[in-house]
């Protein structure tokens, strides 16, 4: 993925994030995920149906890396089974931690493949998806 494309993807998802805004719907489970060392903070909602992720929504204030990666993660994970989603998340975590990972299944999430070069941004790039992971794991 070339740098220009990565930047465009991030900017589009920061400026017009996917599924931003929470629903007043108690069929969703939710949590707050924040970085104690910075000012990023997300409220995240998730709804599972028939073993698949039916919907994910979020709200909050965070930097461009955190917001864009949240937005892309949501669009990538909706429709996946719990196992599929956890597999994608695991590979994403490996990418951020500079370990071997399956590049093909991450698709647009590969935009963050160079984040390891900015160690202080690793937390931004994982905040949203870690919140989603926590919610998925809450669901039996």
């Amino acid at each position: 993925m070339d740098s220009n494309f990565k930047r465009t993807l991030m900017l589009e998802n920061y400026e017009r994030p996917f599924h931003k805004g929470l629903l007043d719907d108690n069929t969703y489970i939710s949590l707050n995920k924040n970085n104690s060392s910075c000012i990023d903070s997300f409220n995240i909602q998730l709804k599972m149906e028939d073993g698949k992720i039916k919907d994910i929504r979020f709200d909050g204030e965070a930097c461009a890396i955190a917001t864009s990666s949240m937005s892309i993660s949501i669009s990538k994970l909706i429709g996946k089974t719990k196992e599929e989603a956890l597999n994608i998340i695991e590979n994403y975590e490996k990418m951020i931690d500079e370990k071997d990972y399956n590049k093909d299944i991450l698709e647009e999430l590969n935009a963050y493949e160079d984040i390891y070069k900015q160690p202080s941004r690793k937390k931004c790039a994982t905040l949203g998806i870690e919140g989603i992971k926590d919610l998925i794991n809450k669901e039996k």
Partner: protein
Amino acid sequence: MNYKNDFPMLNKDIVYFDNGATTLKPKVVMDAIYDYYSNYSSNAHRGDYKISLKASSEYENVREKVKEFINANSKDEIVFTSGSTESLNMIVNGYFKYNLSKDDEVLTTKSEHASNILPWYELENEIGIKVKYIPLTENHYVTLENVIKSITNKTKVISIAHVTNVIGDVRPIKEIIQYAHKNNILVVIDGAQSVGHTKVDVQKLDIDFLAFSAHKMLGPTGVGVLYGKYDLLDSIRPIKYGGGMNVSFTNPKEIEYKPLPYKLEAGTQNIADVIGFGKAIDYINNVGIDNIEEYCNQLKEYIVNKLKNIKHINIYNENVEGSTIAFNVDGVFAQDTAIYLDKYNICVRSGSHCAKKLEDELGIKNTCRISIYFYNTTKDADRLIQALDNDKILEESLGV
């Protein structure tokens, strides 16, 4: 003036505009600390030998310097702490906890630092006092008029910063204190952002309690001051008990504590850093506190006038005198702006700056803060302005 020879950090190709968080240190401060550890390392107030006596006298000399610097009536009114936070906690938990009752009101503002709000919140939880807020004006100022409006017959304390750490406004504390005292209200001043920036004369201002930190005025981290008028300070119950603060003890009923200031300085104090702090005060005195204030005001005006011409910059405290500029770049999260500036080795702070209630007033949660001190130059300012005069800040902040 050129301070590059005096401040090692000024020779590192860094533009440092985070002085509200902590200031840089001149070499004389570090040298004094090194000198203590190298040449007369020993405990103060404890020994009968020469180097310990020297440690004691150097430590006590700093108390005298602080006394002169804020014009306290006596050096016994100066207690060394670990910083403003500890000082404020001692004031709230050592004095007010025992002198306020349920439903008594403390007036503060929504632009205070956490350390001047949380101890009061906890006291509200503990003994049922009420924390109330003085409304701020449109420009986020505190006016005497609004203080008067906020006072009720339950108001017992006003606890406010002299200068706030986000907006940087200077509160009219002299007038507020005069009015408060006529109504038997005590006034606690958080001087963390003011004491190294403007003349604070505790007697002229008639301050009851004052807290400030060494590291925000060229001194080392881990040192602060608690000032109180003698009788008030003497009524503070120690939060810490131990060595150095007692005369004798035989059983729980027979304990004798030392007089001020020692009874509030239990345990071995931060001797090295207090001695370093003394050199910081000397340095500020040499530059001149009035010169510092005037210079910071001028440099702020210089930066504001240039930033105003950049259309994507929003300044929140343009008309406020002082040394702080709170701003955001259109469409860019404060932290992204700070990370972007860091690529040019320009240090600014982003966030809520520990003033989390200010969101209610500003309508925004996070800002970037430029905070100036006297060693910042117009050249630093030009580098900052040039970096901000770029319509691709968001894109470049991504780092990809």
